[in-house]
């Protein structure tokens, strides 16, 4: 076998391994048949069924609200943590603080979920929408902290000094200079937090209560009773949303990069 053909085969196998399950899921979501594994012709029937399944729709709505709220809280807390870690090289308890910020990253989800559950029980808090949101905020903020921190490390502090030198007090400097410049990192931190919250099953199932079933929990419990094609349908929509998000993000960053390169060429030639 020629090396080139060998390479192509390996590549095809790898892609097949990664994407065939997803393709099968998408294809079967358009299946007319009730049986998940038998192709019965093209149909949008299961999308209609899914739409009218109130339990599934409620779960989707809960998930979206939990995602938006926890991603937002997580982003605010994560950004503050990142600022603390990059701006204050020495303070009492810094090592402990760093450890606690990064702990959820390496902690098994089961343990995070269980300890949250124990906390809520001990505090005598009724479990439901808000407990899931709090739990998700806790574990997503560390991801945001990492994303924002990596941006802050490369941030040129002399920009802030220049603003202060020109008469701008520190808090105003943060909102006028620092925040606009680290905003892309904060936005991607938010997106990451939202995605993590969206597909979390373990922590959510520990911390949820009656009336606050998230989509992953709903899907998981339905699958245990047997896979129905409407699950395929809602998963296809999720995949579609995520793909759309990824493509939009990459196109906008690519465009911004192209514009920057063009601007620099213009600047070098000195044409306005």
């Amino acid at each position, binding site marked *: 076998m020629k090396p080139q053909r060998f390479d192509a085969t390996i590549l095809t196998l790898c892609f097949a391994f990664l994407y065939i399950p997803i393709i099968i899921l998408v294809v079967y979501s358009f299946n007319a048949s009730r049986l998940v594994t038998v192709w019965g012709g093209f149909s949008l029937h299961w999308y209609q069924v899914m739409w009218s399944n109130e339990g599934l729709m409620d779960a989707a709505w809960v998930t979206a609200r939990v995602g938006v709220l926890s991603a937002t809280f997580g982003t605010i807390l994560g950004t503050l943590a990142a600022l603390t870690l990059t701006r204050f090289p020495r303070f009492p308890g810094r090592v402990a603080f760093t450890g606690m910020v990064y702990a959820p990253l390496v902690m098994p989800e089961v343990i995070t979920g269980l300890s949250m559950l124990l906390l809520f029980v001990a505090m005598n808090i009724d479990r439901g929408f808000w407990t899931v949101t709090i739990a998700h905020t806790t574990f997503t903020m560390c991801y945001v902290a990492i994303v924002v921190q990596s941006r802050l490390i490369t941030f040129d502090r002399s920009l802030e000094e*220049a603003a202060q030198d*020109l*008469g701008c007090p520190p808090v105003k400097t943060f909102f006028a200079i620092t925040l606009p410049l680290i905003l892309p990192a904060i936005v991607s931190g938010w997106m990451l937090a939202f995605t993590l919250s969206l597909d979390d099953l373990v922590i959510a199932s520990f911390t949820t209560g009656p009336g606050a079933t998230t989509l992953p929990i709903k899907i998981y419990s339905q699958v245990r009773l047997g896979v129905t094609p409407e699950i395929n349908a809602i998963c296809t929509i999720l995949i579609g949303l995520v793909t759309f998000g990824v493509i939009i993000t990459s196109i906008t960053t690519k465009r911004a990069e192209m514009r*920057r390169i063009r601007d620099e060429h213009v600047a070098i030639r000195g044409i306005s």
Partner: protein
Amino acid sequence: MAKSLGPVKRKFSPWTDPGAVPFIRFENITKRYGDFVAVNNLTLDIYEREFFSLLGPSGCGKTTLMRMLAGFEEPSEGRILLQGKDMSGVPPYRRPTNMMFQSYALFPHMTVEKNIAFGLQQDGLSKPDIAARVEEMLKLVKLESFARRKPAQLSGGQRQRVALARSLAKRPKVLLLDEPLGALDRKLREETQFELMDIQHTLGLTFLIVTHDQEEAMTVSDRIAVMDKGVIMQVATPAEIYEAPNSRYVADFIGDINILECAVTGNAGDCLRDGHPPVVRLVSNGLDIAVEQECPVTAGDKVGFAMRPEKVRISLDKPADTTVNTAHGEVWDIGYLGDFSIFLVKLEDGRILRAAQANVSRLVDRPITFGDSVWLTWPLDAGLVLTR
């Protein structure tokens, strides 16, 4: 492009006037970072409208000193007075100083216009006032047609001008410039040096510049402070620093120089020429040197003899004049610089002396070449004795 040169520079030397009140005063300033002493018990006066340079190698404390004046660092000991007012505890945003950063620190998300307007907005000026000032600043740095550009769309030289305009927009009492021309190429740097002097003179501001480039400091400054390891070695005008350095360090740091280690053989106060100082006699490894200089040294003292290469004459014949200093050697290397040639002459004991000669004729083949036996001569007032 026609360039207006402004008024002729008048003689300016407030530091020689004992009654003059310093505009900026660094009083016994010490700055420590842990065990490292960046600035060590330093005292310095700078006068109004002065163009003052802090010159030294990296790590000598010059940038720290400037950052303390801007308010980014607080001195560990001592105080800074600006117009007689103690600046301790005054944050950077309340100081009447503005700084031009080495990296320019232009706000990348704002246009040139907005960058320049930023400081004025902080002062709460009205919109028409800001617009008028921004326009004036753009005109000053000749960037009128670039107002709507973002910093990324400008060349290095243009960014430097925006940074200058932004730091000048608020009419600070003192403008601090941190290695302002470091990132520019040589030609642009020289042009900009003269423009800076022009702007400083027109606006009548006090400029404090930090640089490691001695040529830059010599060109632009009224006075220079040469720094080393957190202390000031010498504060003087460029000409004084060049012609009368007070130590081996300053002599060596500024320009090209020959330094010979010598022993004093006599300082009897004998005058060889009327109207000149008495002669100090030195010997350096068998080479006798006479220097006209008032100098408190006595026989046996170890001193340095410093002499600029352009003050040494080089010739193929033994000089007839016996009143000058002479040394004999052979040409070891020649550096042709276009306007000047530097001859490296190896003395009989192996030491190298440099002699510079202006290339006044257009001969391509120089009369003196490698391996020639030559005589170096220099008058009694060409060099000086360094005790430090």
